């Protein structure tokens, strides 16, 4: 065989080998929300975003809200009458409240301040709908390439009656700050959120579930160091917390019961007795308003899709059936919260 023929034959044979081993097309974003074949009906109204557009699932209907507005982290009042969300701009974001259809919008946080442009994300309503907790980098030091300063996110609250905002939690610097703030249902003075830290030697990223009394400002970790537990969501009665626990190559959905209050760091941590609800790559769990299901986004074949897992909290908590896919191949925004109202 001549050298030229060999040079041609080898790559062609090699390509044939690759052809024989190909697994098909890469998953592709269809650019729209696609329902699964089973047409799972959503009870109440469930909000999610795709490509920063807000969608409402109800029954087997889908409604697009807030056309032209870049939305992240929708939230809804307990009665479903009011929405809150982060409205994204080019280099900043602000918390906006509106009615349930996205009308009568009002911006409640600044998108810039003397310290520079600001981020605001992850709003969550109190039971009475009069307070919102959210994340922002407000209060940071001005930063420039010559004088770099951190801009970690802290937890703030806004009283919607007075419009007054205050910082509840100062973030640990150079961690990215805190995430996922939620009020505990049924009480007026308890918060839950994720604290991002570094632990171990050598240092490694850590995420801890954190309880806070807004009355005393006391803060207590409810998950161990050297682990990543995050994205807590309360059952409507405030007795259970579902959350994500990072494992080796997975982000599983767990649930744990929670004591009424905490005066010191509990040992063992409540997370150590938590129950695995769903394994896989899971994100943004949210409890149904009637407490009978948990919705979440799950990575399946390269797409984050909406799933609903029926659960029972009678006695011990447990799933009452398999998780059902509401969407299929829809590439929903897994970095944006879900919200669910009656």
């Amino acid at each position, binding site marked *: 065989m001549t050298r030229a023929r060999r040079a*041609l034959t080898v*790559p*062609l044979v*090699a*390509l044939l*080998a*690759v*052809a024989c*081993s*190909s*697994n*098909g*097309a*890469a*998953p*592709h*974003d269809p650019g729209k929300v696609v329902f699964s074949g089973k047409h799972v009906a959503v009870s109440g109204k469930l909000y999610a975003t795709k490509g920063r557009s807000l969608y409402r699932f109800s029954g087997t209907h889908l409604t697009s809200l807030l056309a032209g507005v870049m939305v992240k982290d929708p939230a809804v009042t307990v009665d479903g009458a009011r929405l809150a969300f982060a409205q994204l701009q080019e*280099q900043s974001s602000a918390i906006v409240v509106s009615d349930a259809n996205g009308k009568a919008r009002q911006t409640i946080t600044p998108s810039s301040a003397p310290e520079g*442009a600001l*981020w605001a*994300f992850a709003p969550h309503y109190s039971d009475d709908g009069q307070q919102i907790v959210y994340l922002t980098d407000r209060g*940071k030091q001005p*930063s420039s*390439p010559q004088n*770099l*300063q*951190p*801009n*970690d*996110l802290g937890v703030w609250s806004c009283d919607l009656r007075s419009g007054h905002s205050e910082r509840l939690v100062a973030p640990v*610097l*150079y*961690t*990215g*700050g805190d*995430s996922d703030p939620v009020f505990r249902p049924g009480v007026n003075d308890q918060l839950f959120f*994720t604290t991002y830290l*570094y632990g171990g*030697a*050598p*240092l490694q*990223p850590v*995420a801890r579930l954190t309880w806070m009394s807004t009355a005393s400002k006391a803060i207590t970790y409810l998950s161990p160091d050297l682990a*990543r537990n*995050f*994205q807590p969501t309360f059952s409507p009665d405030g007795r259970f917390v579902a959350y*994500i626990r*990072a494992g080796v*190559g997975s982000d599983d959905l767990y649930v744990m019961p929670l004591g009424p209050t905490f005066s010191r760091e509990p040992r063992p941590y409540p997370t150590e007795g938590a129950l695995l609800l769903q394994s896989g*790559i899971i*994100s*943004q769990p949210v409890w149904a308003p009637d407490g009978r299901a948990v919705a979440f986004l799950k*990575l399946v074949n*390269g797409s*984050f899709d909406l799933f609903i897992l029926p659960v029972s909290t009678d006695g011990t908590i447990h799933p009452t059936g398999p998780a059902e896919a509401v969407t299929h191949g829809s*590439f929903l*925004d*897994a*970095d*944006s919260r879900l919200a669910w109202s009656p």
Partner: protein
Amino acid sequence: MSHSGVTGVPGATGPSRTQWLVITAALVGLALIVGGLLYLLPVLQLLGAHDAAPVRGVPAPAHAPPPLDSKQRINILLLGSDNDQKFQQDALLSQTMIVVSVDPAHHQVTLLSLPRDLWVDIPGHGIGKIDLAYARGGAPLARATVEKAFRIPIHYYAWIGLKGLVRVVDRVGGIDVDVVHPVLDDNYPNDFNDSGYGTERVYIAAGPQHLDGRHALQYVRSRHGDLLSDFGRSIRQQQVLLAVRQRAEGMDLVTALPTFARDLNGHVKTDLDLVRVTQLGLFMRGLGGGDVRQAFITPYVRDATSPDGQQILLADWPAINRYLRQLFGAELLP
């Protein structure tokens, strides 16, 4: 009666059935070869773009690549650089240095990140940060520097620029990553504006999510808001590399390859040839999650300041050598 033009000549015999078969087979073969060449051209162009010429004063690679049918370890030095307008094309620092070590005998791949600020001997250039080697002598000097400092034989290299990474991630349809900490950076270098200078604000929420090319680049590149600084960046770089591999597993490479190659032309350089790329691709496809080992030398380095005032990392070489022996066994250079 005169005949104009040619008509069938009674009694003349045409090509036999066998001759027709041969002609048809030859035409089909020719079409296949031409089609194959057209298909392969962008791929071959891409693979042909590399620093092939030996550089004066730079030691030659310590070892030739193992034969194709060998079970010997193959080490590839993966380099990533700024390549936007503000840098000379021939003076790029390597912001990323990862040794990808493929071990066919044990069906395993090791990713070893080398911190860019590590203070090492750069052959022919004295002591400096390891990221300077690529700027001073391209891939050959980066390879020689790694071989000298770590005693790891480097058989191939692959360099990718910023836009190359963005295109790779976009071409595989984005990647799925568990972002371990929120990423916030008010002074992230805006690489793609007209001047190449200026900054932009970056926010990437923590948790599992899908990233497009631009956000994947921000994720691997930002370090201002990370207490772990370069180590944090190394973790993120390996995470993205593994996510790209996972995503590519689901692709039809045969149809994607030429477009992929055209997209990456000018943004990737490598001395890997097509056959080796194919061999490695097939090997990677057969790997499970547990077959990939992530390695960092972070525990064996400490912060320091160089005599000229640079923030650098000093290595505990005996500890690093012990660690590398665990990773590479007897396959280190003497």
